[in-house]
């Protein structure tokens, strides 16, 4: 469920990047305070572990399909929320750079979707709450399962919101939600089962790893009140930012440009023009947001530009091909001379 660059707008990407940077900075501060430098290689190895574990294909009984691990919840449980979040952020950056999975601009979205909800919401509110009376293998299993499923559900919902705010697709909200949530419920079940199984195994083999994290000794526990206050504040800030930016994203920008151009014109002519332009700008207000897709002027402009547009497009691609060919020939000659 990695968001791709192609699906988001710069405004949404930028806002999420800022939120991620803030959270990462806070986590780094926490980790620096709580950790001895021994934990840094540990975090690196854990990141590589999640990477490797994602490559294991688990067969799901009775379905014939297979699933794999996401790892956000597992990292939170084994490393604690702050180190877990940072490790997830590293994994996602490598995936974005080397595998094109997610993208540079969508990086913030992905870290929030896969790292924030698991480490800072599901872990403190669900996992810690279920295991608050001490660790037993049944509690560990249930807590891992539930928190992994819910963490993924929140992440999936966040994907829906980010896509909608970006306005790059036409999917209506309800259809998208109805599509995403059930799919990710199924994925979450597998994720939950694997996470729970791994955590239980670690609990049986090396209980001290979990006990240390649970006690929040070296890795720091989070007080729940602070988390709730933090989430609330983040929601307000992000909500405010997104709605502020949403009005200045490309569609909105073009619309406002049109509008300011319209008013500039109307000052010059005045009178009836003024009135007409006024009416037009008022009627244009709504169409530009959602209904404009099929309005006349748009289809007109498409028909109008299509001939010269396609010719120009072909010409641009031809030019690109020619440039490529020239570079290629040049390089080849140079190689020959070098020989």
């Amino acid at each position, binding site marked *: 469920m990695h968001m791709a660059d192609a699906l988001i707008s710069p405004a949404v990407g930028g806002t999420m990047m800022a939120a991620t940077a803030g959270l990462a900075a806070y986590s780094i501060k926490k980790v620096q305070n709580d950790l001895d430098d021994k934990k840094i290689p540990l975090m690196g*190895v854990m990141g590589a572990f999640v990477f490797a574990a994602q490559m294991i294909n688990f067969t799901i009984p009775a379905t014939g399909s297979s699933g794999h691990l996401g790892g956000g919840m597992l990292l939170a449980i084994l490393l604690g929320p702050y180190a877990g979040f*940072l490790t997830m952020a590293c994994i996602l950056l490598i995936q974005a750079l080397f595998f094109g999975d997610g993208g540079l601009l969508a990086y913030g979205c992905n870290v929030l979707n896969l790292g924030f909800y698991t480490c800072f919401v599901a872990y403190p509110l669900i996992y810690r709450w279920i295991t608050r009376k001490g660790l037993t293998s049944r509690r560990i299993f249930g807590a891992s399962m539930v928190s992994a499923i819910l963490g993924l559900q929140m992440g999936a919902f966040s994907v829906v919101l980010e896509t909608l705010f970006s306005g790059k697709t036409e999917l209506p909200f309800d259809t998208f939600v109805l599509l995403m949530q059930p799919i990710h419920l199924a994925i979450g079940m597998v994720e939950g089962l694997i996470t729970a199984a791994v955590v239980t195994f670690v609990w049986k083999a090396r209980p001290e790893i979990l006990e240390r994290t649970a006690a929040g000794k070296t890795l720091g526990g989070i007080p729940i009140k602070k988390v709730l206050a933090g989430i609330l504040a983040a929601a307000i800030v992000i909500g405010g930012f997104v709605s502020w930016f949403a009005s200045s994203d*490309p569609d909105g920008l073009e619309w406002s440009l049109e509008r300011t151009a319209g008013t500039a014109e109307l000052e010059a002519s005045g009178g009836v023009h003024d009135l007409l332009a006024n009416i037009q700008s008022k009627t244009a207000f709504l169409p530009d947001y959602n209904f404009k897709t099929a309005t006349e002027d748009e289809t007109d402009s498409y028909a109008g530009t299509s001939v010269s547009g396609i010719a120009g497009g072909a010409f641009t691609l031809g030019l690109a091909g020619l440039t490529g060919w020239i570079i290629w020939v040049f390089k080849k000659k140079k190689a020959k001379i070098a020989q």
Partner: protein
Amino acid sequence: MDDLARKNTSIHRLHPISKLLATIVYVIAVVSFDRYEIIGLLPFVFYPLILILLAELPVVPILKRLLMVEPLIIGIGILNPLFDPKGWITFASIMIKSGLTVTACLVLVSTTGLDKIAQALRTLKVPGIFVLQLLLTFRYLSVLIEELTRMVRAYTLRAPQQKGVRLKDGGSFAGQLLLRSLDRAERVYEAMKLRGFHGEYHAYGNSKITRKDLLYLMAWSLFFIAARTYNIPAFLGLLFEGVSRP
């Protein structure tokens, strides 16, 4: 991919910061087009094309990686035509955008390498812990994948005619890998400590930004901004029409 970064071409020699920033400007410019744009996106083909040729990158592996991520984007994009008569335009636009941005990322990595990207991030004031962790994660990756390959081979030999690992065995399988990783982390840490590690990783090379690097960044940024602001193909098309009409 990281091996490709060890080549020595004019692109590879550029300062990592200017390459990183140029990529970011490129991605933002491409992504900021609205959902019906196709023709305006075409000039952006120039950037990956020129870089791939100048840096002598092999095309096939890059295309392979591109195809690997495409299904997900097709999955979301293909639904558009169902909701909008012009959905095919949106779909095409999303596909072009994803192709361009993913290729740009892959080109960045294969001309720069993670070490130097990390160095650029460090210069851009990204905290040392994060950069260090990034490098270590990457370093351990190949080690752990080797470990995993061994485990999977052992498992498949004991479970013939079975695809993948059974979910029932998942806990102990992944858990075993985890414990091995933890032990390895311990050993690696001790080895690092003995060699004088105390929380700082010194990436090699601390080259200065030259006028060439600045020029590279400025030229591309200008081109991206121009191509974003003016619809160059439409303009060329009009020019064509003007020429062909007496």
